[in-house]
Each structure stands twice: as C-alpha cells, then as structure tokens.
C-alpha cells in the first residue's frame, strides 16, 4: 500500500527547486518527516531543503511527526515575512 500527497513549494523553496508543486508517493503511515527524508534523498537541489522545514498539511501548520493521508496537500513554508 502507498499513499500519494501533493507538495507545494513557495518563495525561496520554489526558486530552489524550480517548481511550485510535485506529487510524491510515500509508504502507508508516512509522516511529514518521512516526506522530507524522501525528498532530500533525491539529491540536488532537493537536498538543500532544510531537514526540519515548516510545513502546512491541508492549510494548517503541522509538526514533523504529523501522519499523512492519501491526497493531503503538504506545503513547504519558508520563514514567513508578511506585513
């Protein structure tokens, strides 16, 4: 069994990866942390992502341990600078 999530990359992360979205397959029961490890394992430029980036799952901020489910939207959030 596997699950598929949609990742989003904004601002500096999008510039780094040259893309704003990517679908990623993960084993059942994977967490945000597993997603980050999977992405960084792809090598450059993905390995330049932080080991513990801020992410939002389905538009809510989530910790690294958060479990992912089929169809989740996982956004990689560089340090924010609104106002």
């Amino acid at each position, binding site marked *: 069994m596997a699950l598929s999530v949609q990742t989003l990359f904004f601002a500096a992360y999008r510039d780094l990866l040259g893309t704003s979205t990517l679908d990623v397959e993960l084993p059942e029961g994977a967490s945000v942390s597993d997603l980050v490890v999977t992405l960084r394992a792809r090598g450059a430029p993905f390995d330049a992502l932080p080991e513990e980036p801020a992410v939002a799952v389905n538009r809510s901020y989530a910790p690294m341990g958060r479990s992912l489910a089929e169809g989740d939207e996982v956004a990689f*959030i560089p340090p924010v600078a*609104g*106002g």
Partner: protein
Amino acid sequence: MIHSRIVRNPIAPSEVLARVGHPEDGAVLLFLGVVRDHADGRSVTGMRYECYEEMAEEVLAEIAGEAALRLGTDRLAVVHRVGELAIGETSVAIAVSSPHRGEGYDASRFVIEEIKKRLPVWKHEHYADGASAWVEGTVPPGTGGA
C-alpha cells in the same frame, strides 16, 4: 462584522477605516504597513509580495477572530495586499474600534505581530543596485523543529 481579506489591488485606507466604528465605540485605530525605501541599510526600490493564498485567507481570518476576542467587539478589518508594490504603497491595513482605547491598541498590535509570525506571505525585495532577494522571515510556531 469582522472583515479579513488578501487582495491584489491597491488598499484604500479610508475604505478599511469605514468598516469599523459604532455608537458605543470611543476609540478607533488604523494601522498601515507601508513599503519603505530601505532595509538593513540597503536602498530598496520596490517589493513583490507572494502568498499561499488559500491558506493565507484562513490564517488571516483566524488572526482576526483571535484579535476580536481581545478587542471585545467585532469591529475589526484587516486587509493584506500581495503582488508588486511600490515604495509608499500600503501592504497591510488594520482598523479596529472599541468602547475603550486600551483594547484597541492591544488588538491592533496583536494583528500585525501575528501576521508577521504566521501569515504565509513572503517578500521579495528589489534593491537600487538591481539585485533582489527574499526577505529573511520567521518560522511559524508549531512547525518543523520548533
């Protein structure tokens, strides 16, 4: 009525101000965040604001709701602009009104501080020398290694 919105068109401060006020209220406060011509000693010529729009709308509404509890009224309006902004243009406007001023100052300040902590918005600064860069930001609470 609490009002919160991410917008792409120029912000008219008087329109944001007009969203608050009530016969019970003795204090009205309007805060404007404006693009300034310098940052960390570098001359800035403009700024591009980018956001995670669907989430930013939700987070801004959440911040507005929390601020209204502090304010004690629902006379609160906050508008954040994204896109390409020139020096002197308003990036954020916050209007509040309440019977007493203490709650107004507190709620107004809360909104801008929380925006800076957790609204998924990023700024790309354009410098006078032609360079540009993402403005260093803040890691939102409850995420990553935090």
